[in-house]
């Protein structure tokens, strides 16, 4: 696991210039965009896509065949990818949050505590990205996986929109339903969502291990 992590970190070194550019863009955007959640999510997505890039590096030139002839099990490989992805996604989220909060405070457009709360509330979104993207990337080749990811994301939004329309047609007021939910503090709500995303992450990891164990190289 340690060797694989070092490998991925070293591979990322190749993307140094692109990463610096992305960071610069985030700083630039923070001066114009009022909604800080955009920058936080943007950085978290970039962090997650780095994992996808390392998987592509591994696949290139039949590299996986060699990788699995080293003392690396399929399970080790998947666990390392999740760890690396959470690490990168976490770093992206942290950097995005810092940039957004500092820029917001500097422009007097945001109270730091509020910014922090928004950033924490977006953490499940960041984890959720990994839940969906990693198994899809492991299941399909780079190009197919991109299409699959778009379809899954599109499908998710479609279900949400259709669900809301259906509720409207049936006369169910979703806002009122939300208000009638047991009173829960904002912090507790975020903690609950966070807990759900961690559970989903474990399920996703389990699925990814199954995907890798079935593969032949």
């Amino acid at each position, binding site marked *: 696991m340690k060797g694989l992590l070092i490998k991925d970190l070293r591979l990322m070194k190749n993307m140094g210039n692109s990463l610096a550019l992305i960071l610069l863009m985030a700083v630039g955007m923070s001066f114009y965009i009022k909604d800080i959640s955009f920058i936080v999510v943007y950085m978290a997505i970039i962090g997650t896509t780095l994992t996808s890039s390392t998987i592509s590096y591994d696949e290139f*030139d039949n590299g996986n065949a060699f990788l699995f002839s080293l003392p690396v099990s399929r399970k080790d490989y998947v666990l390392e990818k999740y760890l690396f992805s959470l690490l990168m996604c976490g770093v992206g989220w942290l950097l995005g949050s810092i940039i957004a909060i500092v820029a917001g405070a500097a422009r007097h457009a945001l109270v730091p505590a509020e910014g922090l709360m928004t950033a924490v509330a977006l953490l499940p979104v960041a984890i959720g990205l990994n839940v969906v993207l990693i198994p899809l990337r492991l299941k399909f080749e780079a190009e197919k996986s991109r299409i699959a990811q778009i379809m899954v994301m599109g499908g998710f939004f479609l279900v949400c929109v259709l669900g809301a329309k259906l509720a409207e047609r049936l006369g169910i007021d979703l806002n009122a339903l939300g208000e009638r939910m047991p009173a829960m503090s904002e912090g507790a709500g975020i903690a609950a969502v966070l807990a759900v995303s961690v559970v989903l992450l474990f399920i996703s990891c389990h699925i990814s291990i199954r995907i890798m164990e079935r593969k032949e190289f």
Partner: protein
Amino acid sequence: MLRIENLRKSYGTFRLDCSMEVLPGRVTGLVGQNGAGKSTTFKAVLGLVKPDGGRIEILGKDSSQFGAKDKQKLGVVLSNAGFSGYLTIRDIVPVMSGLYARFDRAFFQEQARRFGLPDNQKIKEFSTGMKAKLKVLTAISHRAQLLILDEPTAGLDVVARDELLELLRAFMEQDEDRGILVSSHISGDLESLCDDVYMIHDGKIVLHEDTDVLLDSYAVLKMDEEQYRTIEKRYILRSRKESFGYSCLTNQKRFYSENYPKLAVLKGSIDEVIMMMIRGEAL
């Protein structure tokens, strides 16, 4: 060290059905044409493909029980795969240290210098020969017990090939319980390195022989049609029609050179034997 019993794997019309063994202290060669089943056999041993049937035992363990920890004892070269071309040797050293408990960093770095492998250049920019040297070096730098080498000398010039074969010989001399399974297109490598050779064709082992026996007792006999009609065919393994008459492969060279002094008896090389085993007809 390695025992393969009736390993079966099918891809479309290709069927692999092979049995072979690598014993401690021995270097065993696997030869055959492209697509004969060499790489599939290697991949099945390494758990990269799932066999349809049969049994593989590696270092005393069934392959289904042979886990990542056990792979510490293997050194592997695959003909068409290696570390990502975007890494450098400087990147690989800590990766190998992280993966192998017994990685000999000093040996690896010293040999890399000896072979003139640049420390800070991306592997994808290496020449074919440099890549081949690096692959072998990574396979022998962690005190493995069994080496599984698929075409380790491909693309090397004569001098570099000799240096690598020397490294493999030194690897074997350090511990008499070590073993190597190696495939190669270059029969010279196999003749000078291997103790025994398996020949694979269309997914099946068609010949297994000690290299010494192969070189001493095998021969190709050249004869005209009249000689072919009268010759004793008991020790002829394969025969092939030629413009001048017939070529025949035998594993009893002395018998024919003593009893048929007029016959042209050509000393068997692995190349000749492969050619006759594959293109000749069994009598």
